């Protein structure tokens, strides 16, 4: 007699196929018009305040903020994602969206930012006091992947500082590096200065004598043809109210 166990194996196969990812989409249910903005990952925190201020002045609008690494956003926009405004932290990603012919108007610079070496405030396991400490063996370092703007800025910065770093993880967006730091999984990472100032004291910056333009990025915003409302949001961002919130969060003038 041959033992057979078809149902459990089939069940397991079903679960195997099921073990994929998760996704979500939705529409506003309270009668307000949804305006979706695809924003570079480093704008996550400032958009909490920008969203509140924008919705106060535009009570009929529900601003939906979708953040990811700039190349992801450009790819989403190029595939026709239903969004009104695209904000990338680099010109390269914006150019990719432009090539796909999905922009509805020329990109405008809305802010600047620059990178810094950051460590967890509550004591990293390895001492990192200077940028050069990143090169020491045993220091666990997370960087952005070179595909995303913060990764290229980090490489610029480290090259200018003449520090050769063997990263332990290359994250697909700056939020990934921030999370590794906040959880204390890495001793140091290269993030934006605004990530440190917006971390509620969880992160601290390692002092450097680098000029501001080293490892700097410029945020570009362009309305998308897929949905209306992009221009209004862009005007708000470059207007006095948006400008002030961006400055409060440590972003530089464009």
């Amino acid at each position, binding site marked *: *007699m041959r*033992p*057979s*166990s*078809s*149902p*459990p*194996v*089939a*069940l*397991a*196969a079903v*679960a*195997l196929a*099921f*073990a994929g*990812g*998760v996704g979500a989409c939705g529409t506003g249910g309270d009668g307000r018009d949804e305006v979706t903005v695809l924003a570079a990952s480093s704008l996550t925190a400032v958009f909490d305040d920008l969203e509140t201020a924008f919705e106060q002045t535009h009570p009929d609008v529900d601003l939906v903020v979708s953040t990811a*690494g700039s*190349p*992801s956003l*450009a*790819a989403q926009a190029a595939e026709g994602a239903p969004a009104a405004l695209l904000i990338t932290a680099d010109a390269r990603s914006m150019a990719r969206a432009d090539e796909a012919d999905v922009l509805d108007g020329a990109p405008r610079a809305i802010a600047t930012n620059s990178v810094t070496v950051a460590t967890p405030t509550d004591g990293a*396991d390895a001492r990192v006091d200077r940028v050069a400490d990143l090169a020491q063996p045993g220091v*666990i370092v*997370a960087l952005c*992947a070179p*595909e995303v703007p913060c990764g290229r800025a980090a490489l610029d910065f480290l090259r200018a500082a003449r520090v050769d770093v063997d*990263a*332990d*993880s*290359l*994250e*697909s967006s700056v939020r990934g590096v921030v999370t*590794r730091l906040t*959880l*204390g*999984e*890495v001793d140091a990472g290269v993030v934006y200065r605004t990530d440190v100032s917006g971390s509620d004291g969880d992160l601290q910056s390692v002092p450097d004598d680098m000029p501001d333009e080293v490892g700097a990025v410029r945020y570009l915003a362009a309305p998308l043809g897929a949905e209306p409302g992009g221009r209004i949001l862009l005007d708000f961002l470059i207007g006095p109210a948006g400008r002030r919130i961006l400055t409060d969060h440590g972003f530089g003038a464009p």
Partner: protein
Amino acid sequence: MTAHRARPPLALTVPAVLAVILLALPLVGLLTRAPWSSLPRLLTEPAALEAMRLSLVVASAATVISLLLGVPLGWVLARVPFRGRGLVRVVVFVPLVLPPVVGGTALLFALGRRGLVGRLLDDWFGLVLPFSTAGAVVAATFVALPFLVLTVEAGVRSLPEDYEEVARTLGADRWAVFRHVTLPLIAPSMVAGAALAFARAIGEFGATVTFAGNLPGRTRTLPLEIFTALEQDPDTALALGVVLLAVALVVLVALRDRLRGPT
């Protein structure tokens, strides 16, 4: 069986056909967009080879660990009645239904550098699992092990206990019975479970990227390479996707007799 068979009701066949379309369409999409002519070149790029090598290492290691730990657990669940067996079975099922990214987060809080056990591993042995290939193996094992346990448990259960009892009355102790009677008889279940575990391990993404990070040659397995390549170089992502689909098909074909439902 009667001579004239009634037509199956449309209320069932229409959703059934929709279900097949829903499942098959993405595969058709992958296969039609795949860059067939440049496949050899894309798949021999250093980054692709590196990811394939790493995936093979990680999935094989996860399968071996799953066999070493999963066969005993499958046997215990099938043959040893104990309080809390239902609870243990739930624990085994959890990784099957938990989103892998949650699994990775949980692993981080357990085995990360500041995790419950990870802190001790670091203090005592200087062992840091995140950002290491060993961490990727742990993540893959976490999601693959249940497939092996459940398949082996079912295999042991379906064995009539007569064989084992006869062996025991002949004087063999339980370990000897397991080794010389049970183990050979459940070999097909072990092979099936190992194949499913391997297939799940080689496709693992969420827990790996969350727990082990993403570094070429160390933790960037095939799915992570696909994720990274998708935005820069969709053709490479598609080519590697074809590789993973081929692996899945090989496993399913190898298991076709066991997956076939009663006819």
